[in-house]
């Protein structure tokens, strides 16, 4: 019993880390060594793949466009969702439950259904192949997510605080920015993290809505993988570089991750 207490989590974590190790391992090998056969660690250690990515504009522009649409999306999602989540957590109004449910359906809708119409919609309004197209398209699932998570955090703040602030003569905007937002600061942080993350990991819409100028890193990677096929070192290095941002911020949100995935309901 005592043994199994640490054995099970340890085995699971080893299982989780193996593919990541393999990716890192590949990224430090030369193409010749990769194609030469199986080897559990790099024999001719090289950072060539990383140098290529950081110096070739096709590659690093992929990162820049990914980061730009992700940031635009995060800012839009959180700022639009804040007042809406407040309304849902404090008031009852005509059609509130239907609206809340309708938002959820958009989080649950398969992006594949939206790929073709989004392509036509964003071409029609002249945003195709810009970061804005992807940022707005990702709002489809990120705004509902942000509203649900923020509503969960806001419902934890007692309503008496709102009432006391009004009695003290705070106007609504001042109360919201000066008192309420600091109280749910961790909630806003977690929401921003989740919007960032779901926009960062999504590929289908990002690939469909861009062609050359705003191509995300994910699309650069899939093309490398499918055309040249055997530049596995480059592909692996690019993969490692996409894991790093998540790996850095994860420490700060570790206690809230469950709440975020459960749409604010744990």
């Amino acid at each position, binding site marked *: 019993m005592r043994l199994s*207490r640490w054995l*099970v*989590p340890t085995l699971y*974590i080893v299982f*989780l*880390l*193996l593919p*990541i190790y393999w*990716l890192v391992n590949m990224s430090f090998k030369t193409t010749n060594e990769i194609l030469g056969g*199986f080897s559990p660690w790099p024999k001719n250690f090289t950072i060539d793949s990383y140098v290529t990515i950081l110096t070739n504009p096709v590659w690093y522009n992929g990162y820049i466009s990914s980061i730009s649409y992700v940031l635009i999306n995060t800012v839009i999602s959180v700022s639009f969702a804040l*007042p*809406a989540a407040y*309304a849902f*957590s*404090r*008031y*009852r*109004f*005509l059609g509130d439950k239907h*609206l*809340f*449910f309708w938002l*959820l*359906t*958009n989080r*649950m*809708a*398969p*992006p*594949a259904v*939206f790929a*073709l*119409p*989004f392509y*036509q*919609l964003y071409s029609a309004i002249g945003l195709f192949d810009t970061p804005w197209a992807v940022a707005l398209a990702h709002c*489809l699932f990120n705004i*509902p997510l942000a509203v649900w998570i923020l509503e969960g955090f806001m419902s934890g703040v007692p*309503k008496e605080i709102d009432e006391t602030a009004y009695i003290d003569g705070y106007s609504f905007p001042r109360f919201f920015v000066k008192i309420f937002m600091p109280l749910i600061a961790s909630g806003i942080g977690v929401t921003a993290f989740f919007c960032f*993350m779901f926009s960062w*990991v999504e*590929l*289908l819409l990002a690939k*469909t809505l861009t062609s050359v100028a705003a191509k995300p890193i994910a699309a650069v990677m*899939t093309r490398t*993988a499918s055309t040249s096929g055997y530049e596995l070192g480059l592909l692996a290095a690019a*993969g490692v570089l996409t894991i790093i941002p*998540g*790996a850095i911020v994860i*420490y700060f949100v*570790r*206690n809230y*991750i*469950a*709440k975020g*995935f*459960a*749409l604010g*309901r*744990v």
Partner: protein
Amino acid sequence: MTKTWNNRAWFFVLPVLLLVAFNAIIPLMTVVNYSVQETFGNNLFFFEGTKWYEAVLASERFHGALLRQFMFTGIILLIEVPLGVAIALTMPRSGPWVSVCLVLMALPLLIPWNVVGAMWNIMALPDIGLLGYGLNKLGIPYNFTRQPFSAWFTVVLMDVWHWTSLVVLLAYAGLRSIPEAYYQAAKIDGASRFSVFRFIQLPKMNRVLTIAVLLRFMDSFMIYTEPFVLTGGGPGNSTTFLSIDLVKAALGEFNLGIAAAMSIIYFLMTLLVSWIFYTLMTRGEEQ
């Protein structure tokens, strides 16, 4: 919390409503339009009624994709949920290792989905990948680009790797909400390990597990990128799930009517599950 009735709250919701409606309703109407019309190019459309729906519902291809989708979702739920609960139960309840476990376990959740596919592709290559090479060395014939069974095995293993942590994190959050006093009371009563699980831990995890099952159902039901990068839906059609099939029809073959009718059927299925999710969530809150 008692909420006040105030219709002016609509002004707070309006920006969200407009932006999401722009993204959701216009595209959905386009899809509905295509699903009832036939085109011969030149932007000429003719009303066709339910022709495309009948075609989709009768097509072998759609049945195949739907069947594979339900099989995949069923298999991963059967593996991930019990495994996730088991791991959450054995995780330390406090101490410095908690953070380490949480951070390492959450890692796969933050990796871009195409990288997950690419990573498992590299891992599973029969000649140079750790998994592929290892299995072949052990004398198990394995080649995920040729044998449907190997492809399925790899896709399922990849999904277990990718998402079991979600179940672990949710179950663990549920377990942490149990006060220490419950365990002490159970000890005094001489409860066995199993009855502690059955009568204390499981009821407390009820809600988070419902969320976990529904989220895993929905997200695996719309899975696209990971299997697409890993196997491309092959060998043959053996790992072509609903989303992959739909994108093939819509963007690959430009078969608008069929793709649109498929989209609507697909969307209605997710609507049903969303409704179940919503009912279970809000019922829990009212109690």
